[in-house]
């Protein structure tokens, strides 16, 4: 491996750039406004894909990788680094979900923020994963650090189904799910070109996620190697000192 990314990753990067640009054009130019929400509906094409990628894909991968780390038969640094890299991208995407949601709320509801169940549980999710990233940085022996992080990751994921169900369980200002609901999955109430643009947005952000994960994982791996080497140097120095005295 060298600094240069593999051709596959580079193709992934270009594909995600092209699909993202296409999504933006569809969202801002081609699709119509909504009969009630007007042009603000255009924020849907960022809000839903980022939320989807953060909650289900990024945090899902983090949870899966954490389980695989905790399971003795599959335990390896690879899973620990994957979990950390994916969670960081998830926090970034969830931050964007909150940002776009806030702007959208300002236009349609008239407020930047309100403490309804969907918004509150999402804010909790954001803080939980920030906490997870902080726990990863608390110094300890590598094994302890990784195990601790894996347990926190699995605990944090418990909030994801709560966020998903919040619009069903409680009364919220936030609208219900358009697609991911047993009653609406086969009959989503959304205009054709809006649905296709949303679908394209999800694909674009998924490609971006894969590309970011490849690079972020590589960075985490390099950091790991650097820490290993620093440790080796320190041990060598100690040995040398002991040898002299």
């Amino acid at each position: 491996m060298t600094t240069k990314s593999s051709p596959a990753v580079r193709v992934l990067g270009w594909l995600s750039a092209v699909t993202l640009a296409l999504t933006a054009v569809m969202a801002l130019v081609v699709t119509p406004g909504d009969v009630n929400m007007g042009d603000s509906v255009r924020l849907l094409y960022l809000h839903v894909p980022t939320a989807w990628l953060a909650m289900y894909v990024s945090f899902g991968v983090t949870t899966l990788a954490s389980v695989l780390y905790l399971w003795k038969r599959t335990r390896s640094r690879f899973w620990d680094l994957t979990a950390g890299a994916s969670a960081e991208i998830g926090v970034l995407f969830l931050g964007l979900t909150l940002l776009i949601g806030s702007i959208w709320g300002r236009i349609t509801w008239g407020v930047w923020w309100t403490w309804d169940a969907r918004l509150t549980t999402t804010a909790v999710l954001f803080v939980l994963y920030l906490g997870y990233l902080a726990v990863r940085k608390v110094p300890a022996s590598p094994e302890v650090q990784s195990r601790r992080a894996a347990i926190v990751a699995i605990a944090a994921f418990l909030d994801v189904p709560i966020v998903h169900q919040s619009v069903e369980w409680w009364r919220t200002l936030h609208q219900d799910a358009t697609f991911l609901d047993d009653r609406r999955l086969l009959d989503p109430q959304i205009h054709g070109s809006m649905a296709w643009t949303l679908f394209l947005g999800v694909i674009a952000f998924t490609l971006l996620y894969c590309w970011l994960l490849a690079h972020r994982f590589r960075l985490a791996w390099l950091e790991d190697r650097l820490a290993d080497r620093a440790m080796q140097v320190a041990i060598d120095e100690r040995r040398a000192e002991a040898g002299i005295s």
Partner: protein
Amino acid sequence: MNDAGYIFAGYFSTFAILAGYAGWVIRRKRTLSRLLRPEDIT
């Protein structure tokens, strides 16, 4: 377009933040691989 300011600000900041993050990761990756000797990166 109604609320064009809000909508464009949303799109602009999203893509700017994503590009900023990607740039940070790639730059840091380059710096770190320069710090490591080739035999460390295998």
